[in-house]
């Protein structure tokens, strides 16, 4: 089995390096095919490992030592257990699909080869992240995906906005990574190791306050990767990257790493329910907060990005409340339908020549039948309609909130579910229904390559049927994760809740359809609604990016300039030069003591003598005074 582990892990790396070899040469299709093929290999290996793990084994290998000094010992160790294998499956499935899809999507791009190099590298990093058996290894993957995310967001590096977004994403993640790093330090100094098994065995013996801090710091790390408030702004901006990237990284895999971390570290969070509650509350808040921003946005990809954010909130609610398997399950389900949604959006973008405003589209279902179907179904899954994947995972989270008696959270999540349904179908309605507003802009949309649609189909299938695996999945992961069943005690309540939720969601969908399916004009910012305070607040993302810009970025730059020009040059350096100058100037000013005139020289000698005699006399007087 170790062989499969290594294949699963390194096949993407091989693909990446292969692509990198050609990165400077012009586009060559074989690069995409080889990379995709290797990813498929990785997927197959993961599947084999899955079946192996399902038979109750886990694979744990230690490849080699990474760092060893003092008491610190960090190996490159990989573990395939019930949790990581689920993640591996998700990652490999989605990434295989995205790879194949990208062959079509990036067809006309000059950086085709480079793209595959980055993309495969990302998958490798993600695999390291999920498969590592220690926190340091996790951190490697963690940073690795950050790097690839940077490279892929800024893939079109000639675009200012793209590179800006890339840097923003990287730096924001770094802020969180610091938290994570501190968490790791705390773990090491308190447990003496970074291996999951050792840490989790030791964690119970630590004082609660330490455990709490560990939990908090690790979660700060998770907040960055999973773009939780207040580190969320990068995710929407990250949509500057190519759409397959958004599908893979900023929807399905990387952003869920935070959730994975919390799930992975469940023995820690189990001990600190207060932190858990905070996580859940923050998750609920983000769910609503992000959904609200999605309501009015006019950028297709951003809407989906906010929805991702919102769903991540759901996952954190589950994880925070201790329902780790639920969180992981939603993660999985979400990966499928959200990737599908993004890829569909990619098709639309292609068709619309990179136009992103859904108000400029409309009626596309006629020309893009396949995409229409897929996106609609994905949206249904997202909205959580039975029997799609979203229903099983999302409803469960609502239940968890209810059962744990966190009714506020429950209410928030319920409300968010409605909003989710609304903005999802607002998008679908605007894009695929109504008048063909794109004609105003002279665009001639066309359906994407067939193979791209074929490539997307596995995701479609999974989005539809993933719910069916719920029990299998449950059986699998409870050997690692706490086995907590969430059942509303009264049958009655359960049904009321379920059906009520469904009705609420359906109502939201209907409302969205009603409002937007016959939309016929492109808003130009003059309508009353667009000028209302609420609309502006939401469309400007609560002014948070602006706030960051004004309060952090600009002052930081300003402060940096001051540090350089005022402090470094004018104070620190000037002091050094000043000392030198004072010495030199003293020389200049006193050199006339030697003015070359013999008379002055003689006088100086006498002055010297007189000074000496004065001192002698003074000393004698003093000496006699003391002596007497």
């Amino acid at each position, binding site marked *: 089995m170790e062989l499969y582990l290594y294949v699963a892990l390194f096949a993407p790396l091989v693909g990446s390096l292969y692509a990198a070899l050609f990165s400077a040469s012009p586009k060559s299709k074989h690069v995409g095919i080889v990379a995709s093929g290797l990813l498929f290999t990785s997927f197959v290996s993961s599947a084999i490992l899955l079946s192996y793990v399902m038979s109750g084994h886990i694979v744990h290998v230690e490849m080699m030592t990474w760092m060893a000094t003092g008491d610190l010992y960090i190996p490159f160790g990989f573990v395939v257990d019930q949790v990581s294998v689920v993640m591996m499956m998700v990652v490999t499935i989605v990434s295989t699909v995205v790879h194949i899809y990208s062959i079509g999507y990036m067809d006309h791009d000059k950086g085709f080869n480079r793209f595959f190099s980055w993309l495969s590298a990302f998958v490798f990093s993600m695999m390291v992240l999920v498969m590592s058996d220690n926190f340091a290894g996790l951190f490697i993957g963690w940073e690795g995906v950050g790097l690839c995310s940077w490279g892929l967001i800024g893939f079109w590096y000639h675009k200012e906005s793209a590179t800006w977004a890339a840097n923003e994403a990287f730096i924001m993640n770094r802020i969180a990574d610091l938290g994570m790093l501190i968490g790791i330090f705390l773990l090491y100094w308190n447990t003496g190791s970074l291996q999951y098994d050792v840490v989790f065995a030791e964690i119970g013996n630590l004082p609660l306050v330490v455990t709490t801090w560990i939990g908090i710091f690790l979660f700060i790390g998770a907040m960055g990767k999973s773009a939780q408030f207040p580190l969320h702004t990068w995710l929407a901006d990250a949509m500057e990257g190519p759409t397959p990237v958004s599908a893979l990284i900023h929807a399905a895999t990387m952003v869920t790493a935070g959730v994975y971390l919390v799930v992975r570290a469940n023995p820690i969070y189990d001990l600190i329910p207060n932190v858990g509650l905070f996580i859940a509350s923050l998750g609920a808040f983000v769910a609503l907060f992000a959904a609200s921003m999605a309501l009015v946005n006019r950028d297709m990809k951003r809407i989906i990005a906010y929805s991702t954010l919102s769903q991540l909130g759901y996952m954190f609610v589950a994880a925070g409340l201790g329902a780790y398997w639920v969180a992981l399950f939603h993660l999985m389900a979400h990966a499928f339908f959200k990737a599908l949604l993004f890829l569909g959006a990619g098709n639309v973008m292609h068709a619309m020549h990179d136009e992103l405003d859904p108000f400029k589209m409309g009626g596309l279902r006629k020309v893009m039948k396949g995409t229409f179907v897929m996106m609609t179904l994905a949206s249904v899954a997202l909205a959580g309609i039975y029997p799609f994947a979203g229903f099983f995972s999302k409803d469960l989270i609502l239940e968890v909130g209810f059962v744990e008696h966190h009714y506020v959270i429950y209410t928030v999540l319920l409300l968010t579910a409605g909003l989710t349904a609304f903005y999802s179908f607002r998008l679908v309605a605007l894009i695929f229904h109504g008048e063909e507003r794109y004609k105003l802009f002279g665009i001639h949309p066309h359906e994407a390559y067939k193979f791209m649609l074929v490539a997307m189909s596995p995701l479609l299938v999974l989005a539809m049927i993933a719910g069916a695996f719920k029990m299998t999945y449950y059986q699998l992961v409870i050997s690692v994760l706490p086995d907590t069943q969430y059942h509303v005690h009264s049958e009655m309540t359960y049904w009321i809740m379920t059906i009520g939720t469904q009705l609420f969601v359906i109502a939201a969908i209907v409302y969205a359809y009603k409002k937007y399916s016959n939309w016929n004009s492109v808003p130009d910012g003059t309508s009353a609604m667009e000028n209302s305070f609420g609309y502006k607040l939401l469309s400007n993302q609560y002014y948070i990016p602006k706030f960051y810009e004004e309060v952090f970025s600009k002052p930081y730059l300003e402060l940096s300039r001051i540090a350089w020009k005022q402090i470094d040059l004018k104070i620190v350096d000037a002091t050094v030069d000043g000392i030198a100058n004072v010495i030199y100037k003293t020389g200049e000013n006193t*050199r*006339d003591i*030697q*003015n*070359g*005139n*013999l*008379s002055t020289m*003689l*006088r100086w000698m*006498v002055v010297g003598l007189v000074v000496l005699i004065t001192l002698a006399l003074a000393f004698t007087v003093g000496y006699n005074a003391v002596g007497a």
Partner: protein
Amino acid sequence: MEVTLNHYLVLSTILFAIGLVGVMRRKNLLMLFFATEILLNATNIAFAAISHYIGDLSGQMFAFFIIAIAASEVAIGLGLLIVWFKRTGKIDLDQMNSMRG
């Protein structure tokens, strides 16, 4: 009114100070050399006096050698002055200022 050694020492000091004033005051090099002679002479008085009061000959020896030194200095000093004068036609030390700083 006994004359003690201190009297001689004070006298010597006064003469020495006169010499110092001369050294500092004179710009004419020849006259400046006069002042240096006064310095040495002032010391000689004191040496002779000390020699007398403690009854030791070393002081007189010292004074003797000081006289010899003074004489030698005159020779060299005048020699230098002569070349200087031949070159510049002046023996005023204010004219001697080609080097400074």
